[in-house]
C-alpha cells in the first residue's frame, strides 16, 4: 500500500496503518538522525518524535511532494532544533557546578562488551567518520547525509532544507571538500 494511502487512513485514526508506515520508514529515518547527531539514544527519541508529528499532522497532510521528502523535512527541522536546544543546554550547564556529566553528542560505541578485533576496527572507523560528519556545519552535514545515504536528488534536498538547488550544490561541494581533508587519514 502506498504511503499516501496509509496517510489517508492514519488521518482517520487507523493505528494499524500508522504501524505499517512506521515499520516501513523507521530504519532509514533513525539512521538519518543518527548520522546527523551521532547519538544513538537521542536518535531513537527523535525518530519517535518525527513519527509523532506525522500522526498529529496526518489530517492536514497533502501529498504535494514525495512522502519521504515531507518526512525528512520534519526530521531535518527536528534535528536542527535539537542542535539549537543542546547548544542552549550546554550554555546553561556552564553555570552549573556539576561538570561530571557528559556533554552529550557522544555515541556509545565504547559501551559494548569485548568484540572481535575486526568489529572493533570497523566501529572505530565508523566513530571517526561520525566525528568527521559532526564537524561539518549543519546544512552541509544534512545535505551530504541526504545525498550519500538516502540518495535524494538535489531538488528533493532543496525542498527539505528549504533552499535553492544551486545552494544545495554549493553545500555539497563544500561538504565534500571539508570531508576530504578530515578523512584523509582513513583512506591511507
Amino acid at each position, binding site marked *: 500500500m502506498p504511503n499516501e494511502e496509509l496517510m489517508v487512513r492514519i488521518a482517520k485514526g487507523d493505528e494499524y496503518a500508522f504501524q505499517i508506515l*512506521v515499520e516501513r520508514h523507521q*530504519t532509514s529515518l533513525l539512521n538519518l538522525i*543518527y548520522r546527523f547527531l551521532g547519538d544513538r539514544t537521542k536518535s531513537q527519541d527523535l525518530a519517535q518524535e518525527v513519527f509523532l508529528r506525522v*500522526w498529529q499532522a496526518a489530517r492536514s497532510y497533502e501529498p504535494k511532494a514525495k512522502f519521504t521528502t515531507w518526512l525528512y523535512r520534519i526530521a531535518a527541522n527536528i534535528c536542527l532544533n535539537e542542535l539549537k536546544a543542546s547548544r542552549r543546554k550546554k550554555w546553561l550547564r556552564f553555570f552549573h557546578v556539576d561538570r561530571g556529566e557528559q556533554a552529550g553528542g557522544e555515541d556509545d560505541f565504547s559501551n559494548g562488551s569485548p568484540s572481535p578485533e575486526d568489529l572493533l576496527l570497523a566501529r572505530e572507523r*565508523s566513530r571517526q567518520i561520525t566525528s568527521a560528519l559532526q564537524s561539518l556545519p549543519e546544512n552541509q552535514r544534512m545535505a551530504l547525509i541526504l545525498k*550519500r545515504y538516502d540518495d535524494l536528488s538535489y531538488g528533493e534536498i532543496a525542498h527539505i532544507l528549504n533552499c535553492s538547488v544551486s545552494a544545495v*550544490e554549493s553545500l*555539497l561541494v563544500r561538504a565534500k571538500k571539508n570531508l576530504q581533508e578530515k*578523512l584523509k587519514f582513513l583512506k591511507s
Partner: protein
Amino acid sequence: MKCRSVQKKLSAYQDGELKPLEQEEVNRHLLSCRSCREEYEQLEGVWQTLGRLEEIRPDPWFYGQLARKIKEPLEHGLSPAIQRVFQTFGGPAIASIILVIGLVAGSYLGSNLARRDLFPSQSIPVSYSQSAFFASMSVFDPAPPGTFAEGYLRMAGYKENESR
C-alpha cells in the same frame, strides 16, 4: 572544457546531477586530464569511506513506545507543543509568569485601592488652591497617595470604622 570549470562541476558530476551533455563533456575531460581525474578519485574515495559508516537498527520496543506516546496528549490534557515548551524552559518560565502576574496584580490593586474614594462622607469641600496645597504636602506622608501602602492603610481604617 577547461580544468577549472570541470573541477567546479565534479561534485554534481559524481552525484549524477549534470545535464546529459555536461555529464558527457566532464566524462571526456576526465579521460584525458590526469590531474582532474585524480581530483575526482579523491572525491570518490571520500564517498566510499562514508559508505563504511555502520547502520543502526531501531530498538525492539520502538513502536510500542511510540504507540504509548500517541495516546499521551489525551491523557495529560496538554498538547505536545506545550509540553515541549515546559520541558525546555520549565522552571524559569513558570517563575517569570508568576512574577509578571504578581507585578501586574500588585500595581493594579495598589493604584485602584489608593484612588478609590472609600469615605465619600468624610470629604470636606475645599477651594482649588487649598486642595493643591494639601496635595503638595502629601509627599511627606509615610504613605503618599497613589501608593499601595496608602491603599492598604485606608482599607484597614475603613474596616475598623465599619466594625465600630
